[in-house]
């Protein structure tokens, strides 16, 4: 049994007389202790999906099971108690502006009926975990974005949840702060064995910390797998788009359109051989490098490169075979037009 099971989830919204399908028959299993990424463009339905996991959004059809418990079968009160087991952080931090840092962290404990003294002890412990002990008496307005998110993380962990939901938690932060928040999440995941669900539109967030990823497009789950699988050989256009971090699909500039474009992915062990030079020498043919990048995918160094191949089909075939023999992942991005 998976910790989070989402079965045939469908959610519709009525907007201005017509129905918008935010989630369309989504099925998903998330295992205990993993960091699961859900990625999609804005409006794809990923926020609705994560908000279904703690039933902030009640689905029209389908079920959400947490540790085997069907959330739709719970009474209001039981659901509120269940929510203490599911922490959540947000893009906008959502701290109580009129309470100081320690009172913000104490808040979920206060709600659960814990004595103030005990709650404070627990809150201090958590502030230490997120490295904010010295800001105990500050108010949110006096903190930076990264510090606010740290407070929010401490607050979400106060009730010792077994799941942490992150709804675009780093989207409002600069790259450096994003990196520090992500490493904090990873640290928490390892230390507490807490299951983390990360919603984002940034592939870098997924490759940095996630173990598995689901791609959502127009309310449908279109691709799912380990981050490495999806990164190395994305099956759908949207996945390629998200990986390339561009608005449009791979569409090289007009003059290059006649070429065949492939995407190759290097792993650490294949990065030693000068493959491109070897291809050029061996086949005595020009290869056009259209783009290249390196990334850290789940702790492994990955290099990716976009190559424009010569027009000769036999030559293209040979080059691709040669690259595959070198244990590189090759995906065809665009056929001859």
């Amino acid at each position: 049994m998976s910790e989070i099971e989402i079965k045939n989830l469908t959610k519709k919204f009525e907007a201005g007389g017509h129905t918008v399908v935010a989630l369309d028959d989504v099925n998903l299993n998330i295992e205990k202790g993993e960091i699961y990424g859900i990625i999609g463009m804005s409006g794809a339905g990923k926020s609705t999906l994560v908000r279904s996991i703690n039933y902030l959004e009640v689905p029209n059809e389908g079920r959400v099971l947490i540790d085997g418990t069907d959330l739709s079968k719970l009474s209001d009160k039981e659901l509120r108690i269940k929510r203490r087991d599911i922490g959540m952080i947000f893009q906008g931090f959502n701290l109580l502006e009129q309470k100081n840092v320690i009172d913000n962290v104490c808040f979920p404990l206060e709600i659960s009926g814990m004595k103030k003294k005990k709650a404070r002890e627990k809150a201090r412990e958590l502030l230490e975990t997120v490295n904010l002990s010295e800001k105990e008496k500050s108010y949110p307005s006096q903190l930076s974005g990264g510090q606010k998110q740290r407070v929010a993380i401490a607050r979400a962990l106060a009730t010792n949840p077994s799941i942490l939901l992150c709804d675009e938690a780093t989207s409002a932060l600069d790259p450096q702060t994003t990196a520090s928040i992500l490493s904090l999440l990873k640290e928490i995941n390892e230390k507490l064995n807490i299951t983390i669900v990360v919603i984002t539109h940034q592939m870098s967030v997924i490759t940095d910390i996630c173990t598995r990823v689901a791609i959502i497009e127009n309310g449908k789950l279109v691709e799912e797998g380990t981050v490495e699988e999806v990164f190395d050989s994305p099956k759908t256009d949207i996945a390629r788009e998200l990986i390339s971090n561009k608005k449009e699909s791979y569409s090289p500039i007009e003059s290059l359109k006649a070429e065949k474009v492939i995407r190759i992915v290097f792993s650490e062990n294949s990065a030693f051989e000068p493959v491109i030079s070897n291809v050029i020498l061996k086949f005595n043919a020009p290869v056009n490098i259209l783009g290249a990048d390196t990334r850290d995918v789940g702790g492994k160094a990955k290099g990716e490169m976009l190559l424009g191949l010569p027009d000769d089909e036999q030559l293209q075939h040979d080059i691709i075979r040669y690259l595959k023999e070198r244990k590189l992942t090759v995906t065809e991005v665009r056929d001859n037009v």
Partner: protein
Amino acid sequence: MFDQKVIGMLLEGIRDTLYMTLASTLLGYAIGLPLGIVLNVTKAGGLAPNKIIYRVLDIFCNIIRSIPFLILLILLIPFTRALVGQSYGSTATIVPLVVCAAPYIARMVESALNEVDAGVIEAARAMGASNMQIIFKVLLVEAKTSLVTGATITTGVLLGYSAMSGTVGGGGLGDIAVRYGYYRWQTDIMIVTVILLIVIFQIIQNLGTKVAIGIDHRKK
């Protein structure tokens, strides 16, 4: 002119004015605050949306607020008499003041609570807070600055209305101003009462503003 008798009368007027203003503000909040909370909670997109309850209270508040205070004062005479035994004097004036203030306060409270960030409410729901906990521990706490500002404005308005009730024998400084300034042409006494009202108003407004700033932790 300003002998012992007049000074005594003015002091009594100040006392009665403060009594009417503060008592009606307090009683007004006793009714208006829960009413405002219900309006906020039952509105579309609120914690517990309820079209019927919202519409009924909405219309009720609008009707009372659209009646000019002086007319309300007269309309309510039988009700006031039934409630406090007489229809003149400071205590009797509190009745129409409260009736007038309650829907006004309800609107103030409703709009103050509307300003609370929806994200914070969602966060509280995600933590497992009940609606009651959200009302008392999130909405009222996060909106406290606007609530205090609203209370200050309300008190100022009620100070003015309490003076207006002087025209029908309501007591207090307004009563003195009408009796001496209007009926007896003793302009000096009228001017003094007006100055006293201005001073009281300033004190209330300054105090309210200070408190509102003092308890606000959003921008410091």
